[in-house]
């Protein structure tokens, strides 16, 4: 049973190594699929990590359901926000299923043994990402795309209503990208799903798009909004052009005219 | 005219003889190298305490210009520059002293370096009594006083006999466990320490087959039940605490413990071996007598 959590950034400013990465970013994220896009170095991953409570902001705060995130105990926060890392540098000898089981640490802590409910959650998460078939294979023996699905299942297994995914489609081939996009759409119905995406066309299929550039929020709106599209093109220095397909879907095309 | 010719002929002969006369000192060192010197060296550096002591015992102390860090006998070398050990000798300082000869052990890494810098390095090895006698001969020859070696060796032999006489007859043939290091390493019958013990009329728990300084299974010592234990005082203090060693009948009273300075004397194969034998003999003579009653009590422990 997922609750309707809202994750808000209020005037967030974040520094990394003394350098300001985010400047006065404010947004309110609710149930549905929100895509965060922007050029390299815009601060997308940093925003996601700060929303996940992994980075303390220099000023401003993050609120989960109107409660400051930093007031929450780490495990409580882990039960309500799940975060998926960008790259998957994998060490260790865990199997896929054992990896997904790690997602239940938020509920079990270090010392409790898994119950039937936990196993059911793991099964459901693996079923949703379609990686049950290789449950017993070692994580490091899987391909990048397969690994990504297992790690996504890990995030799902936490049962958190808020899912923050940092470039989840990076290692996936087109069929799997499509499958993941469909999965994200399905999950967005019951979760607050935020994903940082490089693929603009995919991002434009989300419910909402946040455009970041140089640490500031350039635009925050629905994909159909022309103002958003204009801001998107401007953020990428007009290297891309938002067009519409015959069926009315927005698509981002690189400008290769010259 | 004839007198002048005779004189010239004699001069010629003399010069010829002088020219073809070989160097004053020819010797082969323990490394197999041959050394030819025109005259006995006047500036000597030694890199091993036993070599320092040998040079001094043979009357060459005044010629020492530098010694190693561990040399500490006799007192007269107190102010000589210390040039490091065998492993880390200070090459630059040795060269700066301009020695005529450097005495070192065969295992010295620095020997090659010094030789390549043009110094004469004489390698001397002493592992056994025979070695010590031979090295005394070698060094005496080097010093130009070959007769001094036999004198020195006779003195040492006399000290051995003297010491042996001081060992109580009841102790003759008793087995000694001489601990060289606490792993435990023992001095076997094949080592120079073992030879000294034999000359004192004492036995050894370590037979010659095991080599000079074997690393023993501690259980071996317990089973061997030595009659006398010789070790550094520090080692003796913790010996009874070793597992099973409290059963050693020789502990605590039939044991000779030596402070570090005296212990060093015992483990140096050099001209002071006689003094070492005396120290051992005195200690053994001073041990309480093992009466039948005392033995009984120890068995009951």
């Amino acid at each position: 049973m997922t609750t309707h959590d809202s994750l808000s950034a209020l005037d967030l400013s974040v520094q990394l190594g003394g350098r300001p990465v985010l400047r006065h970013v404010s947004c309110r994220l609710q149930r549905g699929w929100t895509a965060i896009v922007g050029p390299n170095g815009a601060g997308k991953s940093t925003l996601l990590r700060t929303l996940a409570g992994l980075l303390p902001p220099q000023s401003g705060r993050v609120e989960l359901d109107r409660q400051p995130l930093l007031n929450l105990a780490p495990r409580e926060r882990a039960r309500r926000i799940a975060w998926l890392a960008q790259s998957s540098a994998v060490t260790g000898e865990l199997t896929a299923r054992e990896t997904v089981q790690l997602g239940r640490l938020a509920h079990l802590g270090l010392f409790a043994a898994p119950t039937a409910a936990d196993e059911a959650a793991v099964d459901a998460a693996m079923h949703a990402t379609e990686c049950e078939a290789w449950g017993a294979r070692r994580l490091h023996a899987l391909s990048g795309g397969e690994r990504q699905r297992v790690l996504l299942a890990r995030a799902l297994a936490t049962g958190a209503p808020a899912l923050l995914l940092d470039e989840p489609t990076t290692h996936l081939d087109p069929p799997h990208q499509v499958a993941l996009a469909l999965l994200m759409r399905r999950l967005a119905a019951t979760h607050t799903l935020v994903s940082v995406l490089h693929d603009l066309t995919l991002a434009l299929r989300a419910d909402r798009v946040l455009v970041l550039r140089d640490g500031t929020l350039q635009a925050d709106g629905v994909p159909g909004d022309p103002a958003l599209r204009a801001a998107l093109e401007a953020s990428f220095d007009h290297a891309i052009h938002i067009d519409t397909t015959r069926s009315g879907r927005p698509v981002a095309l690189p400008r290769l005219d010259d | 005219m004839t007198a002048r010719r005779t004189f010239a002929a004699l001069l010629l002969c003399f010069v010829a003889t002088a020219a073809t006369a070989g160097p004053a000192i020819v010797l082969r060192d323990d490394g197999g190298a041959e050394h030819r010197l025109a005259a006995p060296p006047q500036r000597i550096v030694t890199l091993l305490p036993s070599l320092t002591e040998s040079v001094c015992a043979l009357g060459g102390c005044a010629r020492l210009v530098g010694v190693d860090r561990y040399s500490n006998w006799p007192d007269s070398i107190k102010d000589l520059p210390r040039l490091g050990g065998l492993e880390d000798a200070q090459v630059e300082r040795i060269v700066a002293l301009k020695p005529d000869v450097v005495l070192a052990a065969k295992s010295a890494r620095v020997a090659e370096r010094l030789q390549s810098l043009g110094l004469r390095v004489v390698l001397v090895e002493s592992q056994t009594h025979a070695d010590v006698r031979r090295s005394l001969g070698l060094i005496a020859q080097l010093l130009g006083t070959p007769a001094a070696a036999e004198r020195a060796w006779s003195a040492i032999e006399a000290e051995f006999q003297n010491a042996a006489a001081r060992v109580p007859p009841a102790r003759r043939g008793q087995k000694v466990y001489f601990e060289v290091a606490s792993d435990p390493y023992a001095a076997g019958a094949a080592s120079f320490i073992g030879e000294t013990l034999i000359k004192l009329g004492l036995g050894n728990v370590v037979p010659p087959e095991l080599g000079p300084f074997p690393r023993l299974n501690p259980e071996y010592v317990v089973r061997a039940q030595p009659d006398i234990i010789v070790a550094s005082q520090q080692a003796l203090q913790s010996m009874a605490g070793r597992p099973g060693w409290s059963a050693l009948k020789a502990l605590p009273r039939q044991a000779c413990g030596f402070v570090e300075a005296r212990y060093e004397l015992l483990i140096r194969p050099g001209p002071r071996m006689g003094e070492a034998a005396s120290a051992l003999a005195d200690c053994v003579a001073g041990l309480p007598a093992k009466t039948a009653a005392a033995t009984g009590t120890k068995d009951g422990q």
Partner: protein
Amino acid sequence: MSATLVPPAAAAAAPVLADAARRRRLLLTLWGLAVVLALLGLAAGPSGLSWSAWMADVGGDQAMLILGQIRAPRTLGAWGVGAMLGLAGAIAQGLFRNPLADPYLLGTAAGAGLAVVLVLAGATLGGVAIGLATAQWLARLGMVLAAFVGALGGLTLTLMLARGAHEPMRLLLAGVVVAVVLGAVSDLVTTVSPEALRGKQFFMLGSTGFLGWSSVWVLAAGLAVALPLSHRYASALDALTLGEDSAASLGLDLPRIRLVLVGLLALATGLAVSQAGLVAFVGLVAPHLVRRHAPAPQAFTLLASAAMGGVLLLAADVLARCMIAPQELPVGVLTAVLGGGYLMRLLKRQTSE
């Protein structure tokens, strides 16, 4: 999504069974080996391994002494030290996510070595100022206590230099710095005191020769604390394989967890080193051998590494006693040959598969 899914249960079941079977087999083998080696350890003495010597020993009047006071505690102690080192090595490799990590990384070895050298040098430089009666225990106890305190001291220095256990990289570098500096100080002391140099060399090689019942109790107590605690924190090590941030996002208090694990590492290493000196290679190779035979989450790997380390050192100890009896080989040489040789064989077999 794709409709050609293999029914999950059947496909996943076979490999899972193989995993569990391999773990069971490994544990059984290790326990079996431990028992066999322990019996051999009771029989190995200055005459090596021989049936007649064994019968003589058992029947002799010194049986209680030889078997009970000398061989039994030495055998058990060797296993205990090996187990400690194996556990410590597994923790180190899990904590730093580095297969080359060993228990001596964080300044523990250098600290223990320096403490031992100081005790040896101090005793000789200070002359014999202590009465013989008290000195008997103080000297032996002093070395053990000094090594343990030194190990913890070295680790504390490392933690201070790295300003806490937050960043593994900084911790590793601080450990290297501390090891080099303390090693240099130790070398300085040994140039002044030749007795300390001799003692230090034996400490560096490691030795199981003088393990008595007091050592066994201390090691047993240490294992009783370290094994369950490590087991409890094992899943944290698993979570860390996902990456620092991912582990943090799971709600784990990483700083505290790392501190506990580093503390366990120090305890295990300190106890092992204080009893047997710096035995090489056991901590490094035991987790590797476990992973080759039965890859598993850390909960299994930690305990199995302890069992593997125990067997490794016990085998080395028995061989050390038997090969050139009544002389002994340094046990550290044998652990390197046994452990390293076996690992090479396994690696070769894997590459040819």
